[in-house]
């Protein structure tokens, strides 16, 4: 079994780039806490499992590109976008 690192590395980097712009905004009227993002992560794992891996990639049963992007978005949000956008 060969693990395909391409989607994992670049999905994570792409996710970091996107996640760095997701900031809590007081004007929006809703406040997403850390617990909200944990729920999004759990839903995302189920999502990735239902999507399945790309064709010819026989390493895992869940979509590594989707999961790496989700982890990247959440990590980027907590590392680079901790403040509010206003």
């Amino acid at each position, binding site marked *: 079994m060969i693990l*395909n690192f391409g989607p994992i590395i670049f999905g994570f980097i792409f996710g970091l780039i996107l996640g760095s712009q*997701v900031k809590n*905004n007081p004007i929006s009227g809703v406040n*997403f806490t850390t617990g909200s993002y944990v729920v999004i992560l759990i839903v995302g794992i189920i999502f990735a499992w239902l999507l399945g891996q790309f064709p010819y*990639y026989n390493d895992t049963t869940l979509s590594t590109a989707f999961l790496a992007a989700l982890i990247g978005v959440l990590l980027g949000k907590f590392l680079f976008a901790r403040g509010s956008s206003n």
Partner: protein
Amino acid sequence: MSQGSIILKLIGVPIAILLFCLGVMTILGGHITPGGGFQGGAMIAAGVILSVFIYGIDGSPIKFSHLYIDILENFGALMFIIFGLVGLFVAGSFLYNVGSDISNVVPTVIRNIFHYPDVTNAGIIPYLNIFVGLKVFVGLSAIVIAFAGFKKFSEE
């Protein structure tokens, strides 16, 4: 449901984040599945558009600054050109796939640098998809952000 509906506001950001991930997945699978840079970039932009529509341009939790848009747009275009020029200088034709090297004209060191790490031997195609995806998602998002800004400006 109106624009200010609490249900829309509660599901807006989670759906936008999942749309981001679906877009990234579409971009990274562009060389073996239907999709690619443009389609994936449009899906990511759809997440941004959803957020701008639901929360409004001022209240949107997903906001792109002018510098962010500028850097990503230029980076995508510049890297696409650089990858094309590498093929031109190494193999004699613009955008030659130096990662897979079907004609066996590229030195092994350069081939290893541009080889995408997966089982399909796709070469530089996934990288080009990534750069196109960056450009498209930033470009489409910028158009919608600009239109929303114009609308707000005309209402004031």
